[in-house]
């Protein structure tokens, strides 16, 4: 437990926050990498996800892409790209963008897919254009899942930016890598604590956003089969995912 106490003492010492290799600068770097990567990924994934979600075409593309992304060892991919492209900001951001796209795309797509067909058909019937349906019906109703995808992508990027400390000069991962390399275990624990707190805080903020953007009535996402207090007459019409038995 000594290591933890030392690590907290290190973090609380203002002297360790200053300078190019201080906590402050590395925290800012980490946030900058994350913001840039998620931002670029959103520019690509959100329009694509909206297109696939709205038209319903390309569903298998999303599934194949997300499965492939899950299987790819991120650490190996990162080192491979950095080795080929050189150690700069661009290759690092490129890797992070590539890793952030699948969860974002899946979130946007699944958000739109989760929307009940009835309001969409109703909107079309009363004469809304496809753009209006997308903007006024599908997007607001699918927004919670979309933010869910954003949370996934952001966590993924924060975690990968941490191991990027192995090659990059910035980010909180440097404390972990330096600590491990120099066998200064306290320094590694400092990095572990800072990274964990950063991930938890960012995820918590996005969770609040997710709550705020959920339209009342669909805050729980698509209707789920309930287990309790549903009158039998309502249960009759309910579709259950599993039909065998």
């Amino acid at each position: 437990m000594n290591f933890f106490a030392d690590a907290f003492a290190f973090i609380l010492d203002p002297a360790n926050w200053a300078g190019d290799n201080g906590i402050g600068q590395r925290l800012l770097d980490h946030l900058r990498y994350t913001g840039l990567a998620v931002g670029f990924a959103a520019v690509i994934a959100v329009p694509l996800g909206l297109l696939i979600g709205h038209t319903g075409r390309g569903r298998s593309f999303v599934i194949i892409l997300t499965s492939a992304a899950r299987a790819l060892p991120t650490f190996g991919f990162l080192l491979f790209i950095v080795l080929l492209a050189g150690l700069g900001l661009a290759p690092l951001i490129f890797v992070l963008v590539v890793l952030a796209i699948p969860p974002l795309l899946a979130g946007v797509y699944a958000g739109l897919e989760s929307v009940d067909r009835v309001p969409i058909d109703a909107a079309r019937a009363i004469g809304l254009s496809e753009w209006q349906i997308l903007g006024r019906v599908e997007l607001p109703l699918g927004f919670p899942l979309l933010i869910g995808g954003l949370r996934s992508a952001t966590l993924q990027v924060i975690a990968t930016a941490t191991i990027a400390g192995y090659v990059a000069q910035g980010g909180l991962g440097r404390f972990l890598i330096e600590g491990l390399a120099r066998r200064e275990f306290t320094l590694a624990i400092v990095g572990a604590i800072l990274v964990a707190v950063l991930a938890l805080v960012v995820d918590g903020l996005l969770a609040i956003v997710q709550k705020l953007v959920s339209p009342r009535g669909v805050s729980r996402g698509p209707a789920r089969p309930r287990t309790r207090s549903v009158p039998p007459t309502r249960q009759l019409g309910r579709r259950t995912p599993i039909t065998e038995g």
Partner: protein
Amino acid sequence: MTWLLNNLGLVLGLTADHARLSAIPIVVGFAASIPLGWFASRFPVARAILLTVFGILFTIPSLALFVAMPLILGTKILSDINVIVALSIYAIAMMLRGAVDAFTSVSRDVLQSATAVGFASWTRFWTVQLPLAGPVLLANLRVVSVSTVSLLSVAALIGKGGLGYLFTNGYQRAFPDEIVIGIVFTLLIALVFDLILVGIGRLVLPWNRRTKATRDAGLASFLGSFRRAGASA
């Protein structure tokens, strides 16, 4: 290719290591999520607590968890236990939500019918609820399996990453082929594990066909309030 042939022993040894270090957390994650998932599907309070706790643990980047493990467990830094426990935590976190969904997805009518014809709650669980939850559990387990295999390579930074060693070593020697071989063999392990799971699924769930619920489990694992892409670094 020449490098691979010359170092076949090393690569195969690391592959065996990688398979062993990732197989244990997958099994632990599955075994633990059955009772936990059942418990959470029965009691809403337990559900809220368990999902929140594992949600928070899942948020912590893997390298941070790997490094903190020896302190929390009191193990040696180079002990296998660190990596196995950390990956088991992620596996449970990924599996738990799916297990809860799987158990709640079993129709209440079916469960009540089983009770009505005389099943005790213990037998009812093993002979009715668990088999019916099987397809969704299997779909989630496949996601956990692939993610765990890919996640393990990060542990190369603490000297226990199986094939991840080829990544750090290849980088230090500026030899991209070695990294590519590491990636390919990691993908092969993930593929073999997946085929094994599908095979087991065919054996124990012979009635299982691809339903929408099982098909979507892979996609769904990216979503929701705490689900995250498993191949998180």
